[in-house]
């Protein structure tokens, strides 16, 4: 049992997967960093991606398996698909999920559909690791989450861990999984830490997690929103309001049963998602609950999301944009009074 940051937990899962299966490879921009073709000199592993998550892999596993790419996402995502189909287990890095648009076709029409439309003979065991989230003062094009774009597409799996434990366990599973998985890492969570057993087993995709048991209100928290949900629950506990926090952890497949159970218990639900609201994951979960737990609901589900705007840069505006602990507390109080 060791305390690990999310960043290190991900690195651990990568190393372990590389060691366990020689078919695992990694492709992305500057993931080795500072080391190009053999004949040139430079400090190896200077980067490991912009957040240093893959540092050390190049040195350990070499340039054949840890492959710096050009800024050609459509190219290397396509390559990952072909490599996956023919036996490798490629992991590709989309440096920020905001760049989803330059290689969305590869995920939507090839990775997701190859198996289905060619009659089930093929599989595409690839993982896209990508970085999501606001709160970094990174502006409109480096702060999105875009969970729903990928969750909408049949054939893709979508995973978004909150803590280091889940990050490691879910990444191990994602790499072993035979379907294409989008693994979303939140930039504001990389340096957060928790206990992670050294021999942590893979955590199955499609299984959510009750982060806190409670009886009055269910808070369904999407990735980083678990932080605020926890803060809110702590505050609310002081005034004797008991919150249950459900972290779905994987959005496709979604652990509907776990959600329904909690809703049955509390009858009051808040969904917190830092994404834009329309056709969001929050909308999906809210509509699912509203339909399937209609008679259990004592009040309307409340969604707390970002507004329908791009992510603004300036701190006061960005802080306003992101759902806050206060908004959750207010919503819970409102629900409690129903």
């Amino acid at each position, binding site marked *: 049992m060791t305390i690990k940051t999310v960043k290190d937990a991900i690195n651990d899962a990568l190393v372990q997967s590389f060691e366990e299966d020689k078919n695992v*490879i990694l492709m992305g921009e500057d993931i080795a960093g500072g080391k190009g073709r053999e004949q040139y000199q430079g400090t190896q592993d200077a980067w490991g991606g912009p957040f240093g998550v893959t540092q050390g892999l190049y040195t350990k596993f070499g340039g*054949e*398996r840890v*492959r710096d*790419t*050009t800024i*050609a*996402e*459509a*190219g*290397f*995502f*396509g*390559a*990952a*698909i*072909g*490599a*996956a*189909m*023919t*036996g*490798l287990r*490629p992991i590709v890095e989309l440096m920020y999920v905001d760049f989803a648009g330059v290689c969305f*076709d*590869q995920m939507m*029409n*090839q990775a997701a559909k*190859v*198996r*289905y*439309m*060619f*009659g*089930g*003979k*093929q*599989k595409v065991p690839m993982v896209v690791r990508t970085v999501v989230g606001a709160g970094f003062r990174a502006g409109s094009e480096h702060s999105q989450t875009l969970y729903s774009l990928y969750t909408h597409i*049949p*054939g893709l*799996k979508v995973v978004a861990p909150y803590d280091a434990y889940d990050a490691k366990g879910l990444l191990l599973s994602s790499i072993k*999984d*035979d*379907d294409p998985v989008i693994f979303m890492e939140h930039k504001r969570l990389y340096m957060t830490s928790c206990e992670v057993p050294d021999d942590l087993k893979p955590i*199955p*995709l*499609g299984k959510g997690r009750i982060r806190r048991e409670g009886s009055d209100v269910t808070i369904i928290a999407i990735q980083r929103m678990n932080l605020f949900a926890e803060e809110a629950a702590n505050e609310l506990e002081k005034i004797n309001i008991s919150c249950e926090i459900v972290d779905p952890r994987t959005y496709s*497949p*979604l652990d*509907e049963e776990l959600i329904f159970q909690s809703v049955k218990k509390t009858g009051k639900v808040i969904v917190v998602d830092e994404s834009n609201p329309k056709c969001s994951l929050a909308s999906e979960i809210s509509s699912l609950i509203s339909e399937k737990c209609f008679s259990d609901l004592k009040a309307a589900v409340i969604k707390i999301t970002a507004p329908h705007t791009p992510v603004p840069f300036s701190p006061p505006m960005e802080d306003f944009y992101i759902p806050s602990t206060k908004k959750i507390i207010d919503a819970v109080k409102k629900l409690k009074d129903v």
Partner: protein
Amino acid sequence: MIEKQKINWIYKKIFTIRFFEERIKKIAKEKTVPGYLHTCIGSEAICVGVMAALNQDDWISSTYRNHGHAIAKGCELNEITSEIYGRKTGICKGRGGSMHISDFSKGMLGSFGIVAAGPAVVLGAALQEKINKSYKTCVSFFGDGAIHNGAFHEAAGLAKLWDIPMIFVCENNGYAEATATDWHLNTKELSDITKAYDMLSYIGDGNNVFEVYDITKKAINEAKQKNTPIFLEFKNYRFSGQYEGDTQLYQPQEEIDKAKQNDPIKLAKENSSKYGLNKNDLEKIINEAKEEVDKAFDFADTQPWPQPEDALEDVYVNYPVEINR
């Protein structure tokens, strides 16, 4: 010299493809075949010439215009036809249709409906071959229209950078939909596009199956020897419309007439004695090809439709939640 067996194979395939496409064109006119049909009349020599240089387990990718590639790569005629008809026994269980005919077990990575999606996928397969040191040949087929697309460029650049010995096969059939190739060309030759990557390229007569075969075979050897991708441009003519039903008004009659003189089937017939086939041999092959095509269509006609709920299968290898809602 090519072995007798390969010559027979080439002739058999080239006729099979032509008959197959003619038959499907006819049926498309007479009764409704569901969906879009993109036939490849005029491409037979490219399909067969390239595939003659490959092994069964080498990898290729194709496009919506894939019947010829699928037949040449060894996919079952019955299954292809059944797929086009939308039947349960189709090569993709009826899920793909004409645009997505593909059989992984025959070395087809897929027939992609998105222009220029294939090259990068093949790049990945070739990367895998390189990493696993198994060195199967990897070929991506695409059209003259695809070279303008960014996805092609990204794949080409990475293939060269990573010293991947894959073969890019561009079928320059004169048109991308209703747009003539040269209306959109910035360079003298289409294959000049590879200069951006300092990539080797060769131009061949796409109507001459033996020339296609020779060039491809040499290119495969050279690519593997030099550890480098190679781009092949084969020039031919798209006698078919973009799809069945296309009026083709934009194709001038003189152009079509001129192209007919180099029809790949006509050339193959003319060349047959040179390759040791006498009239009888040829006739025998032609009849066999015809018969097999006929049988495939008869087969498809009798095949059962899929169950509606079959739509729900094969989305994932493993998905622990109901997808029917």
